[in-house]
Every structure is written in C-alpha cells, then in structure tokens.
C-alpha cells in the first residue's frame, strides 16, 4: 500500500481583481495531480515558483481542501479523517516566520510536544535528541527572535519530528539557507529516510532533488509533467544535444524562427547581464548549428557551444518547454 497517494488532485482559488469593480477570478493552482509514494521513499516534488507545489503539499497535510480528487496518507483520507492524518505526519515549511519569537527553542518544542500529545515522560529525551539531530544543542534556551535563518530552519525540522511521525512533509526546507547550512540540512533529511520514515520534499533546486530523492515528480503549471528516478529523467534528455547560443538584441521573431527550425525540441531563453542565452535542445546527431544561426540572421551572435544535456536541461525542457504547448 502506498504511504502517500494523490489521485487527480485539483485546487482552484477564487481571487478578485481590480479595485473599483471587483471581478471574481478563478485560478487553478493544481490541475489534476496524481502520484504515489511508497514506504521509506524520499520523494521529491520539483518545480518552479508558482507551479503548485505548496498547494499540493498543503492538501496532503490537511490544511487545504482539494476542489476535487482524493488523497490518502497511510490509507487515511485527508478530507474525511484529518485528525488521524495529523497525528501521523510531520510538516516542515521554510521561512523566517512560523515560530513563537518570544519563546526559546525549547519552549517552542515543548508547546508542540503538548499539541501532538507526546507523553510527558518522553518529552524531555525526545526534545534533547531532536536538538542534537538538528544541531541546536546548547542554544535551545535562547529566544527564537535572535536566531539566524538557518537555525530557524533547523528548529522547524525539529518541531516537525517532535511526535516521531511516520511520514514527513518538507516544503522548500533549504530555501534562503547558506550553502553550508543547506548541506547539513540535506544530510539530516537523508538520515530521516535511513530511519525508515517516508519523506515528501518540495523544492525548486534541481541538484537538491537530484542528490536527495529516490524519485522525482516534476510539476509545472499545476500538472505533473514527468515522473521517475533522477536517472530516468536525465535519460529523457540523454538522447539530446544542447546548443548554447549567446545573442545580443534578440527579438521575439528571432526566437520564433529558432523554434521553427526543423528538429528543434525545445528552446529556452535565459537573460544574463544584458545579453540572452538561448538553450536549444535537439535530437543527438542532428547538426543544427548552421540552420540555427541562419534563423538568427540579423541578430548579433556571440559564443556558440554544443554540449551534453544535464538534469537542469531536462527540467527546463519539461517545465519551460511546454510554453508553446499550452
């Protein structure tokens, strides 16, 4: 039985636009997301900002009701049995807020220990162990208002584990954390799986998903556009070549012409320091450099290089590449 099961989850938000004549606008944040996570897996939900990751995770942890579709955690329906689900899951989200600033880390943990019904005789040891796990031992009596971003993040994780949940949900856990701190956090996350827990992680950092996750689902514009192990996802673009073209004063019709070159699978445009970098993906073996440059006739072109695709290219192709397809 899958530990986490999402079936055709959808979530629509109703917002209003305009100041004088308020019109109701429906925004579909999640448009039919389905996936399964098995026991002991570290599953990654990878996608750019606004893709629907946080909305999806909030539905799974019972904080948001799906507009349609179902989700089950440990066999329990998140809509019908929220309390039972809450008892068994831990939830960690990124950010500076979400902690009681005036209290110490210890008090924050004690409070949530009560809320999660951790037996009093177990609390002390559990809290001490968790502080050790996240590297906050010695600083637990300081008020949270003096904590750095990385420390807060670690405290969030400790809090998410206070009741020793079987399933842990992490929403962008390393966002805004310095590289060294982030690396330590990832090691901690990996250790959770080693303990037998099931972990679902959302992130927009490619390398994080690549290095940590057993399986990844790539989500963009509210839909899952690819699913598989990191290796499988890379293989999706393994048979491709990426041509990087540096262009100056690139115009819209230039990009359109490049897209129109036969054999081109996807084009993404990156803007760096006032110049554009085109990443053109095409099947391996197809020599497209000449047709591409011809398509860009009239635009000043700088560096041109062909290379092997990386997971980032796979991601970009999956996430950005379906701009035209929409």
């Amino acid at each position: 039985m899958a530990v986490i099961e999402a079936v055709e989850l959808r979530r629509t938000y109703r917002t209003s636009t305009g100041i004088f004549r308020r019109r109701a606008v429906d925004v579909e944040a999640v448009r039919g997301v389905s996936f399964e996570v098995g026991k002991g897996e570290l599953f990654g939900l990878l996608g750019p900002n606004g893709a629907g990751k946080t909305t999806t995770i909030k539905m799974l942890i019972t904080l948001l009701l799906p507009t349609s579709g179902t989700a089950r955690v440990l066999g329990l329906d998140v809509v019908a049995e929220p309390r039972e689900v809450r008892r068994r899951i831990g939830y960690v989200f990124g950010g500076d807020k979400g902690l009681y600033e005036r209290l110490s880390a210890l008090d924050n943990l004690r409070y949530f220990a009560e809320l999660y019904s951790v037996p009093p005789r177990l609390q002390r040891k559990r809290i001490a162990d968790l502080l050790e796990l996240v590297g906050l031992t010695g600083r637990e009596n300081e008020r949270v208002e003096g904590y750095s971003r990385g420390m807060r993040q670690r405290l969030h994780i400790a809090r998410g584990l206070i009741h020793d949940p079987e399933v842990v949900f992490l929403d962008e856990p390393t966002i805004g954390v310095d590289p060294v701190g982030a690396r330590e956090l990832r090691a901690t996350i990996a250790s959770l799986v080693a303990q037998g827990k099931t972990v679902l992680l959302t992130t927009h950092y490619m390398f994080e998903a690549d290095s940590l996750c057993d399986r990844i689902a790539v989500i963009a514009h509210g839909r899952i556009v690819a699913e598989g192990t990191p290796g499988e996802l890379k293989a999706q673009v393994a048979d491709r070549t990426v041509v990087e073209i540096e262009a100056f004063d690139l115009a819209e019709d230039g990009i359109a012409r490049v897209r129109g070159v036969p054999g081109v699978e996807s084009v993404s445009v990156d803007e760096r320091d006032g110049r554009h970098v085109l990443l053109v993906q095409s099947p391996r073996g197809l020599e497209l450099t000449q047709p591409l440059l011809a398509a860009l006739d009239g635009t000043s072109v700088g560096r041109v290089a062909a290379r092997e695709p990386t997971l980032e290219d796979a991601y970009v192709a999956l996430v950005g590449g379906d701009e035209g397809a929409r």
Partner: protein
Amino acid sequence: MTSLRIFFVGGAIAYRALFNWISPWLYIPTMLGSPLFQILFFAYLGRFAGVEDDAFFVVGNAVQVCGMSCIYAMTMTIANERWFATLSPLLATPANRLALFTGRALPVIANGLVVSVFGFFVGWLFLDFEPAAGSVPALGLVLVVTVFSCTALGMVLGSIGLRARDVFFAANLAYYLLLLFCGVNVPFDELPGWMQTVGSVLPLTHGIEAAREVAAGEPLSSVTGLVWTELGIGVLYAAGAFALFRLFEAEGRRRASLETL
C-alpha cells in the same frame, strides 16, 4: 488526558508567547498604572458632577479595568498567531481545538483578576471606598464571574482577529465602549433606552450592578439573578468565539483565507 494538558500547560505557554506586555517594564505601567489613574479620574469626575459617591465609581471602574487583560491580552493571545504565522503549524496538529482555544483564557482571567483586585485596593487606599464588612468573599465571586464574562468578549475579538486585519482597533474601541454602556461611570438608569438595551447584552453590566450591591452590604443571595445572567452572557460569548474560530478554520481549509496577513 492530553486535552487537559493542552488546556493548562499549552494555554500557559501560548499566553507567554503571544501576550505583548509580558515584560515588567510594560506590564506595570500598562496593566496597573493606567487602571489606577482611570479610577482616580472618574471618581473625581463624579465628585465634580455631584453624581453618586466614590464607591460607585470605584466599583464600576475596578471591575471594568479587568478589560486591560480580558480584552487586550485575550485578543493578543489569539490574534497574534497571525502575526507570527504560527497558525498553519498550529492547525496542522491533531490537538483538540476546544482545549487549544479555551486554554489560553485561563492566564488571561487570572491576570484580569489581579488587575481588578488592584483596582479595588487603589480605590480603598486613595478614595472614599470601604467594602461592607464580610462582603469581600461575595465580591470576589461576583468578580470572578464578571472577569470570565469580559474575557469571553475578548475571545470573540481574538477570533475575529484571525481573519480581520485591524482587530486591535476594535479591541481599543470595545474597552472604551464598555465604560459608556455598562453602567461603569454613568448610572445605568440615566442612559437612554437604546443604550440600556445594548448594555444589557454586554458583559460587565450585570456583574457591576451585583458588585455594587454586595459592596454596599447586600447578601449574595439578593444578587444571584444578576450573577447568573452575567455568567450566561459570558458562556454565550465564549461559545460564539469558539464557533467563529472553528468557522474560520474550516473556511481557511476551503478558501486558504487564513494565510493572508
């Protein structure tokens, strides 16, 4: 029984976390200093206007100043969850909602009692107020019920604060409106009819009337009707506050409305 622990232990921790004036530098001027002068102010106003006596104003105001805790602190102890963005983690827990919500009221009620008792003491010390012999226990009971009922109003405001933005504006206004509508300073019979109607459904009105009678020497048995009414009002407000809280929680799940600050 984890709900009991959430009620007592959790309630106390939440109070410490969310009550803004907990440092002594803030507490003493705000919770004790301000009520002291409020009582003096209105007692002198009463003397100037030639209305009633010191005891009237002392009892009325000493009871009402519990609002410093019951209105302000109670509103903070609920609505500040928004400020700290701790509402999500809180609602993600399986904790019993009733214990979670009402547990916070306990420290607030205790605090309110402290403030009111201090008010009575100040009135006795500086003004012409002397509770009738043997009336103190009865007065204490009336006070407990009234402080509870005022806290319930604070709970309603706190719940509203989970959704509305400027709830402290409303809390301020509520504190001062109580001065006008509940017979705190203006004898209830002197108020126009519509104001009396409003006042009779607010906390404090019946409790203050009972407190005045008891302080003047009437036995507790003569004010039981008033005390029960006050208690009933408190229970109704508290139930309403909890209902609002659950409503907002459910709405938050449906419309993601609780996240917006």
